[in-house]
């Protein structure tokens, strides 16, 4: 009888350890603590070019993560990319905030940076951010540099 008791206790410890490991993976390793999906409001923004932006890319304001990219689609009427941003309900930004697409580090992934404007009204669910700046495309910049160099060469 004592034998089975020890066995049962050991199995209990094992199951608890396994659950604790799963819990640790969920809480400490993964992103569950950062944002809850059904907890926030959505705003949209049109970009000329989204570059390497992806769904679930972070949205930041002053470098703080305030939301995620919920959806990216191409608007074939305006010929621009329509990006839906899901922002955390706890953060309020002025209605004339601007959105830009930045790259974290030289080779890092791209994210949306929000810069607050001066309006007193806050962005609400379904609002559109009007001032946007597209992603920098490395090839375009290189092309521009080459073009200006060539132009310099011609004037000499």
């Amino acid at each position, binding site marked *: 009888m004592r034998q*089975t008791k020890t*066995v*049962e206790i*050991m*199995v209990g*410890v*094992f*199951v608890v*350890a*396994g*659950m*604790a*490991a*799963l819990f*640790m*993976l*969920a809480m*400490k*390793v*993964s*992103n*569950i*603590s*950062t944002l809850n999906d059904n907890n926030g409001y959505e705003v949209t923004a049109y970009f000329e070019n989204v570059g390497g932006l992806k769904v*679930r890319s*972070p949205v930041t304001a002053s470098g703080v*993560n305030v939301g995620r990219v919920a959806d990216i689609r191409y608007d074939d009427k305006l010929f621009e990319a329509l990006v839906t941003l899901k922002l955390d309900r706890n953060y309020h930004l002025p209605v004339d905030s601007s959105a830009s697409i930045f790259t974290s580090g030289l*080779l890092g992934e791209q994210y949306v940076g929000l810069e607050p404007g001066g309006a007193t009204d806050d962005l609400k669910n379904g609002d559109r951010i009007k001032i946007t700046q597209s992603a920098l495309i490395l090839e375009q910049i290189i092309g521009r540099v080459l073009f200006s160099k060539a132009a310099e060469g011609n004037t000499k």
Partner: protein
Amino acid sequence: MVEWLARLGRAGLSFFQRLGRGHLFLLQILAGLPGLLLRPRLVIQQLYSIGVLSLLIIVVSGLFVGMVLGLQGYNTLVDFGAAQSLGVVVALSLVRELGPVVAALLYGGRAGSALAAEIGLMKATEQLSGMEMMAVDPIDRVIAPRFLAGAIAMPLLAAIFSAVGVWGGYFVGVGLLGVDEGAFWSQMQAHVDLYDDVLNGVIKSTVFGFVATWIAVFEGYDAVPTSEGVSRATTRTVVHTALAVLGLDFVLTALMFGNH
């Protein structure tokens, strides 16, 4: 020539017969699972010998795999000035791949072989037929508890493996190599997704546990009841488990992460 063809045909037939027996056997086990609700003690006993006794090798291997990942990842990442991503490298490789796969391979070697040998020996010493004589179904009484215990234990073992591995990577990365502690955890949390990574890892390990235990109990039950037959069954269990786990891992990875 005809003789050769006949031998080929015989091999093919026996292969498919085994495959069919294995699946019928699985159906019998699944039919025996509800009866275990009345006898949970049988499952707990097996959880002890399958799960608890495998803990040591799982924890030690997980720790060292995580530490090696920390060292190797650091050496590669530091060249790109990205040593702060070490946490991401360690956590993603453990949670997505190494946790489920290595834990399943260890599980096959540690618990699967023991299961096959035990059941094979029960058959060889006619304990299973003895049970049948007493109108006790050996599948309900012997096989089903082991199967259920294995299927429960494997995801837990894989989770423990991954968690311990992440800590191993943390000790080496932060403690030994001086990666910033905050960056280690925050980068990890930013890049590891609960559903895409952690949950898919759990699904993987559940599938592996199911298949590895199925192979082990079937090989034991289907063993030729001699000492040589039991030894063959044990070997086959380890080999087939490893092959099935690695093959399934590719399929599951392609299904889970293929469309990115």
